[in-house]
Structures are given as C-alpha cells and as structure tokens.
C-alpha cells in the first residue's frame, strides 16, 4: 500500500492552507469511491490525502423557490437521491441519482468528488447539465462560478485550478417541465452506462420552446449537445425532427471502444436513445 499522510481539516480555510502547502503532492478525498481505486491501482500516489469529511455543513442541501437547489459538495449521492425537494422539484435528478451504481456506493461517494474527478462515465453530470447547473469553485483567494458544461475540460480534467475546491452545486429553479433519463446498462444494472442520456424540454402547442440535452459515456467529457438542441428549439415537434436531433447529437459525441461496446455501436445507441428520451420528455412536458 502507498504510504501517505492523512489530514482532516475542520474548516475550509485550513483545507486551503494544506492544499497550498502540499501542492501537487496532495489529493483531496471525500467518499473515496474514486480516489482509492486509483491509489490501489497506483495511478495516483499522493503523499498527502486531505479529507473534507469534517468540514461543517459541507453536505448541506437547501432549496428556495426563487433561487433553486444548492447542494454542498460533500453531499453523498444517496442523500441527494432521497432529498424531499429533489424528489419534488427535480424528478430528473432523483431518477438519475437512483441509478448511480448501488446504494453502498451512493452512500459513500459525494457529488463534489464525482464532478471534480471529471470522469465521463458517471451519470450525474449529464442530468445537471440538462438542468443548467453551475458549480462554485473556491480558493483562499475567493470564489468563482462556472457553468457545469464549461467545467468539464477533458478526460479526467476539469476547470479546477491549483488550490481550488469545488464547494457547491447550484441548480436553478426548473424551467422545463418535460424530462427523461436513459441509462443503457446491458451487462449489469450496476455497471457504468454504455450510453447515458439526460434531457429537459419545454413545449407549447406542439412546439419546442426550449431544450437541454446532456450525455455521458460518449466522449472524453460529459457532453452538452448544443447543436442537437438547436435542431429542435423553436420548431414543431415531429418524429422527423426528433430523429434529426438524435442524428445531430451523435455527431457531437466521440465515443471510444471499450468493454461496454464499440464506438460504432455507441453511435447507433445515441441515435436511438436520444430520440426515445426526447419522446418521453415531450410527453411529460405536455
């Protein structure tokens, strides 16, 4: 096993000073569901591991009708899944978090750890993009807010800079009532998605007023399929339009071959699953 120093700061301020002191030698841990696997496989060998579990109120979930949902980065997936305002106002999030791995992992892994890892295979990012979420990045020098679709930079790379921590996720009040989430897991229901699709839509008299489409497991980052959205936005919703949107979505993705399927198969899936998700979301919207 790797030898490392383990620190449990009790305030964010102390966490920042530890981060500044140890720089690249340090790694942040919350639930550990991602970091520990990488450490066991020797992909990461930090000298210092800084735990955020003792920072007060870091897992707080609050909801205000005007402001929306604010999720502390330390909230675990299971708490978000079961949160009453999430169930009531953000059924897409409830549905998405319900499908993450299995309860033992959902009880450990945190949303901050999930997003900050920048793993394109995981589920929450796509649904949060479909809900216009933004993340708060904090350092000793101050705070900044980044749209989640701009937060994901590349494979396991995010907009987080040295000394920064992801501290909060903000999801504005939901503006599009139609939603759908498809997690395609043909091997085991507990697997990562072969393809994941999250969509929200607002319709009026058979026309798409607005739409958001997020996908996971289809590229080096979680994808916000803006071109596909543009196909449908402001247009009458027809079967042909939905097919075209799904077709365009597949051009925005660059899947790779892995043990869940070939790139070619995943492109086929995107075309089918985006269309199906859109159909369901439109149905829910009206």
């Amino acid at each position, binding site marked *: 096993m790797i030898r490392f120093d383990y620190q449990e700061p009790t305030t964010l301020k102390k966490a920042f000073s530890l981060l500044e002191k140890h720089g690249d030698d340090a790694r942040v841990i919350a639930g550990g569901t991602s970091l520990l696997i990488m450490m066991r496989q020797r992909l990461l060998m930090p000298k210092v591991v800084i735990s955020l579990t003792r920072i007060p109120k870091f897992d707080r979930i609050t909801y205000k009708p005007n402001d929306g949902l604010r999720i502390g980065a330390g909230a675990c997936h299971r708490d978000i899944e079961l949160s009453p305002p999430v169930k009531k106002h953000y059924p897409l999030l409830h549905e998405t978090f319900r499908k993450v791995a*299995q309860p033992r992992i959902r009880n450990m892994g945190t949303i901050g750890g999930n997003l900050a890892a920048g793993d394109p295979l995981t589920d929450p990012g796509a649904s949060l993009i479909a809900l216009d979420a933004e993340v708060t990045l904090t350092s000793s020098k101050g705070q900044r807010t980044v749209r989640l679709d701009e937060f994901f930079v590349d494979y396991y790379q995010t907009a987080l800079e040295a000394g920064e921590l992801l501290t909060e996720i903000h999801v504005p009040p939901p503006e599009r009532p139609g939603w759908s989430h498809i997690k395609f897991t043909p091997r085991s229901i507990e*697997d990562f998605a072969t393809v994941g699709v999250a969509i929200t839509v607002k319709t009026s008299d058979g026309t798409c007023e607005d739409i958001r489409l997020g996908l996971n497991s289809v590229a080096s980052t979680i994808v916000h399929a803006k071109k596909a959205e543009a196909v449908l936005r402001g247009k009458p919703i027809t079967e042909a339009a939905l097919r075209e949107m799904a077709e365009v979505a597949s051009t925005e993705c660059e899947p790779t071959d892995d043990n869940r*399927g070939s790139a070619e198969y995943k492109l086929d899936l995107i075309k089918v699953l985006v269309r199906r998700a859109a159909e369901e979301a439109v149905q829910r919207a009206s």
Partner: protein
Amino acid sequence: MNTQTLFNARYRIASALGVPETDVRIIQTAVGGGFGGKSCDDNNALVAAVLAKKARKPVKLINTREEEFLAGCRPRVFMKINVKMGFKKDGHIRAKELKVIADNGAYSAKAPAITGVAAMRHDTCYKYSDVKIEAKLVYTNKVPTGAFRGFGNPSAEWAVEQAIDLGAHALGIDPLELARINAAEVGYVSPHGNRVTSCELKQCLDRVEEMIDWKAKRANKQPNTGLGLACTVHVSGKRHFGDYDGSSATIKINEDGKALILSGEGECGQGVHTAMCAIAAEELGVPVEDVEISRADTDLTTFCLGAFASRLTYVSGNAVKNAATNVKQQLFEQAAEMLEANPQDLISRDGKIFVKGAEGKSLTVSDVARARLFRHNGAPIVGSGSFDADSVLPDATRFGNESGAYNYGAQAAQVQVDPETGQVKILQFAVASDCGTVIYPLGAEGQVEGGLAQGIGYALIEGLQIDEGRPINPNFSDYRIPSMRDMPPLQHTFADSYEPTGPFGAKGLGELNMDPTAAVINNAIFDAVGVRVKTLPITPEKILRALKEKG
C-alpha cells in the same frame, strides 16, 4: 485454509515441501463460495507454505482482485464446439457428431477432464444410440484454466442444446416436444456407459411447461418476444481421482446425547453441513438441533476428497448416513440391555429410544450414551461410515459409468429483444430440477438461484478479455458479474424423485442449473427475432449486428 478440497491441498503442500502428509495440517476457514476456484488448481497455498517453511513464521497470503484474475483461481476452459445432429422426421435423435477445440492455457491441471466432460456428459441427457466425438485440448499462452461450476458442461450444453433447438425448428416440432421425445429415462445407458438409476427429466419438462405457460405463450407469440428451452444433466460425484469416488465420516455421541459429525469434506457456503446434520438426524431418530458438525480439519477426520462435482449430498451424505447407522446400532445394543429387549425391536424417534409399540417406556440418547460410558469396560459411543459410489473409472476410450447418480433439469425462459438496441430483457424464467429427495430445501433453492444467476452472467454479462495472454479486465468494474437486481422473475420447483442409491433418495444439484442457461436464453432470442449469436457473452451489440445482417 480457504479451500474446497482439504486433503488434496495437504497432498500438494506435502509434495511441494518434501515432507510426509502427516506433517501438514489443513483447517478449513469459512469459505465464502468455491465454485471450483478453490479446488487446488492455484498455487497460493504452496507459495505460502514454502515461505512459511523458509521464514519459520506464519505466513498469510491475500491476493488483490487483480492478482486473483492473473494468477489466482483459474478461469473455465474456453472452447469452440461444432455440432452436427441427425434426426428422424418424428423428432427422434439419430446421431450426433461433436468437434471440440479446448483452450487449455499455459499450464494443465483439470483441463483434460473438463474437456472430456464437454465431449461426453451431455450424452446422458437424451437417448442416443450413435455419437462421434473429436476433442482437442491445446496449449496456449493464456492464463491457465481450471475447474469452474459446470466443469465443461456449460460449454457443451450451450452448443448441443442450440443444435437441438435448430433441429426442432427445422423439423417444425415444438422444442419442448422434441426434448420430451428424446429425454433420458431410468435404465438408459449412454454410449459411454453412464447408467441412469433415477431420472425425472420428463416430469421437469412438464413442470416448466406449466410454470411458464409454454403452450399459450407459443400460440400467442408477440413481436420481438420469444421462448427458449434447454435440458441439463449433471453428475453426483465423478470417479476420476485414484479410482475412488467415496467419502467417510465419523459420528460421536456426547454425554448430553448430542451427536457430532466429523467430516473432512468441508462447507463452502452451499449449506452441505446443514444437509449432513439433517441426514444424520433422520437416521439416528433425533431432532436436527441435536446434531452438530465439526469444521473440516485434516488432523481430525478421515480422508475426504472435498467439495466438487456436485458430490457431497450424495457421496458424503451416504457416508454420514452409514456412520449414523453404525452409531444407532451401538445405541440400540446398550439400550436393549437397559430395556431388557432385543436391539432389533428398538426404534428411535425425536431423540427417544424405545421398544416398538411401547413408547411410554423410553430412554433418551443421553441416558444410553452415559450408561455405555460410565461403567466397567466403559466406552464412548462413536462410529464411522464409508461409501464409495458404484461408478467406474473410465478406460482409455473414456468408457465407464462416471458417477453413482445423475441429476437432471429443464429450464425455460421468455425474453424480449429490443430490435433497435439489441438489448435482451428476460421476462420470466422457469426452472425444474430433479435432485432426488430434497434434503435441505433452503440450501437447494440457493443452489438453483445461484446456478441460474451465474448462468445468466455466463450468457449475457461475463467475459474475460485477453491480450497477449493476460486478462485486461481483471477487476469487477470491467469484468461485470450479475447483481441481485439483474435477476429475472423466477419460478422453480423440484421434481418428485427418488434416487435408489442416494441417502434417503438424494442426489447432486450444485452445478446443474448453471449448465443450460446460456442455451435457454439464446434459444429464446432466436425465437424472438430469428438471429443466433454464436459466441459468449451474447451482447446487445452482437445481436444488433446480426439483425442488421439479416436485414
């Protein structure tokens, strides 16, 4: 030690260290499932033993999951099988030709035996007159292979049960009828000499037909939905190792009247200890709560082969029953003196011993055991029993009745295939098993459900990916296994059956329901959408490709 086969482990360690077997003691720890992987194909214990001897200190070896995939318990033998079958127009099987190429991996252990099972075991399932088999086992640079639940039989049933399904479709006969026409029966002897002493395969077919509502579902077929069926046969022990397919056990009666079984066969999570206690209790005429069983320990028990080949309920069950008969005889001799009766007039029931018809004047087992012990020429009541199955070590042509008893089963499934993604959803599974008398119902249900779960994993989920001889998915994130939530709705039942050579009519069950599942699912997929994927696992991508090719 975390093993299914203590005495084999002792032999291997003694050989490796160059010491007498008596100098090695193996005590079984709580084994959380064996499935063949802990039956001495691996070298973990040898490494620990050599290190311990060198260091003169205790050594504990724990593999990481990755090490376990690379060099721990071995994967099953990969096979490529070609089947050619001939049928009469009425559906009777006329002949079967099988060509097997089996991938041994880098070092050989049980792979020759496993290939033999794949080549011939299934001939015991249906009434065959003519079979021709060519099986080749080849060395490759892959991870060495070994025993895994089914021992070659899942590979064979995957191939042969699909050939039979193709035959049924070609002949225009309901696959269930075709199975019924050809099903083995009591008295059948397979072309290689397997002798069937009990067989309720036809009853199993009736049961799955009813459970899954086969006829109505076939008559009312829905688009992209299909039914599949396969039959299965397995052994109850296999005569293979040193011309011995037996077991032995010792039972001692404690002063409080409770019985303790000493057995070296070992428990690996399948519930065999409970079954052994139930068998001893039944024979002794005492409540099952009054029987306990020791942890397996090579210093305390007589030689036992261990847990493999679905053998323990049948082979070890018979040995325990014989030991109990021996002990009961001793109890009755002592009790006869005390009751002034003849031993042969005594019976025991609910822990009491009395003269038939005179239950009012009874003795407890404790009364009798204490009376036998605390007196001049006193002695404890203790007795052993042995059993060696009436099977035959196969000769050079592989002829010979390989097991004392054969267990049978039928599985049927209804699946739905998504034509746009290739995804398979199992709507319903029906399983009927003939394991003779069910000794321990909860454990037996567990074997059925666990076998089916692994069968589903084998069919749809699992697959070792090899590059340059090494597994490249050596963890449970990349190598997925089925979870509880992946199990389909399942109905299962046990046939009314009695194996005349089994303990109270029982025979094996452990591997039976892993064997046919992949074929059942693929037969159902064929019925649903008319394509047949020919390699495992059956992934949705392969199905979608086949659907596109079909057009």
